[in-house]
């Protein structure tokens, strides 16, 4: 039987010449193609998606960037007082809680369209009162876990903020109160026109003349359409 190299077929001579000259060239070419595909594919993935191959959240139309931006008319926003710092004494230099000489017990009330829409929990004995955007009653959590109803609690119920529909001219009123055993004392009243505000946290500082008992206030405004991961990221930025 004749060996394959001796067959007389058209192009066989050329095959033999090219094949024997560089038998590894074809193999090397395949290796280069493998490497090129990997590098090209990686570059493509980097340009079109995150490093894990998933589409980045910022590409979705409803995603809200973390940078502050002016509120958009016609949308709903969560509004929350993140921090309220009271001065050392009352306007008349009296202590806040004169009978036990403790720091003030602070809470705030939000009014919209002249009605009370939100009231925070009281931060006891604190000149710098802070409120988290998300919170849960530990008793509810424990009860829910024990009874198996924890999974039925929705995220909305955990948000310590009021959803406000913003139109041109929408104004809310923030009232800072000092909780007292006998009679709560109004510390400050702040009307805020929402259309002039920006997303994120805005810090207001007040002079003695502007607010004799309130030194500063941090107001957080977040688009209600903010995806949960970004909402949690904002919560983490305490």
């Amino acid at each position: 039987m004749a060996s394959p190299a001796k067959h007389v077929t058209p192009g066989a001579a050329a095959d033999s010449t090219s094949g024997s000259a560089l038998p590894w060239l074809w193999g090397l070419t395949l290796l280069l193609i493998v490497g090129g595909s990997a590098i090209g594919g990686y570059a493509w993935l980097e340009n079109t998606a995150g490093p894990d191959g998933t589409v980045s959240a910022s590409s979705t139309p409803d995603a809200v960037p973390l940078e502050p931006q002016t509120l958009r008319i016609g949308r709903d926003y969560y509004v929350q007082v993140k921090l309220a710092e009271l001065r050392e004494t009352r306007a008349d230099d009296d202590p806040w809680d004169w009978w036990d000489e403790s720091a003030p017990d602070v809470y705030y009330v939000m009014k919209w369209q002249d009605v009370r829409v939100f009231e925070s929990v009281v931060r006891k004995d604190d000149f710098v009162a802070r409120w988290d955007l998300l919170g849960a009653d530990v008793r509810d959590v424990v009860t829910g876990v024990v009874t198996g109803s924890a999974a039925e609690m929705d995220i909305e119920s955990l948000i310590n903020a009021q959803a406000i529909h913003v139109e041109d001219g929408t104004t809310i009123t923030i009232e800072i109160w000092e909780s007292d055993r006998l009679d709560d004392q109004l510390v400050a009243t702040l009307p805020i026109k929402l259309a002039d505000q920006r997303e994120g946290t805005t810090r207001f500082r007040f002079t003695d003349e502007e607010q004799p008992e309130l030194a500063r206030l941090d107001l957080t405004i977040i688009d209600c359409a903010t995806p949960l991961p970004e909402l949690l990221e904002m919560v983490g930025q305490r």
Partner: protein
Amino acid sequence: MSVRGVFKLGVIPVFLLLSSIALGLGWIGPCMTLVPGFGVLDGWVRLFVPDEFTTPKTYSIFTGIVALWDENHRGLAALLAGFSIAFPAIKLAVMGYGHAAVVAGKQTGTAWWLAHHAGKFSMLDVLVVAVLVIAVKGMPGNSEVVVGWGLWSFAISVGLSMLAAIAIAWVEHRVDHPMLSGERVTPLPQTPPA
């Protein structure tokens, strides 16, 4: 066209080329995504547990091996790297050599024979992910593994290279026959019917 012509210009080089492209993409494409689930406590866990435990994680073959290495599972990382990265690439190079050798009328050699017969182990990665999918499905909390296109690309690469290897072996064993070599021969005389 002769069998050798078909062999040279036909499907085998295409198989090898496509297999090479698919292998490169299979290395870096998303191979699997681990989606953690926590059953009835899902909402609570996602609220209070750090993101790294709750967000889905996507691995390619390459990043999976790197992750195993970083987690000090270096033996497993080396095993997967050997059978998923080094071996398939070397195998393709050897098959390219084997293809060129057969076209030139030579024998493919021992290296090609080894690559062809050890090729079955290239599916190790696919097997590992398949086992993971089944194992995670059995866990409580609705966790799951979602297979990505990277794994399919890798599997296609391995499949095409195996087809190419089979085709090369088939032609190599038959190319000595004049009918298959393309050489014109005189037909054998017909045996008269009994």
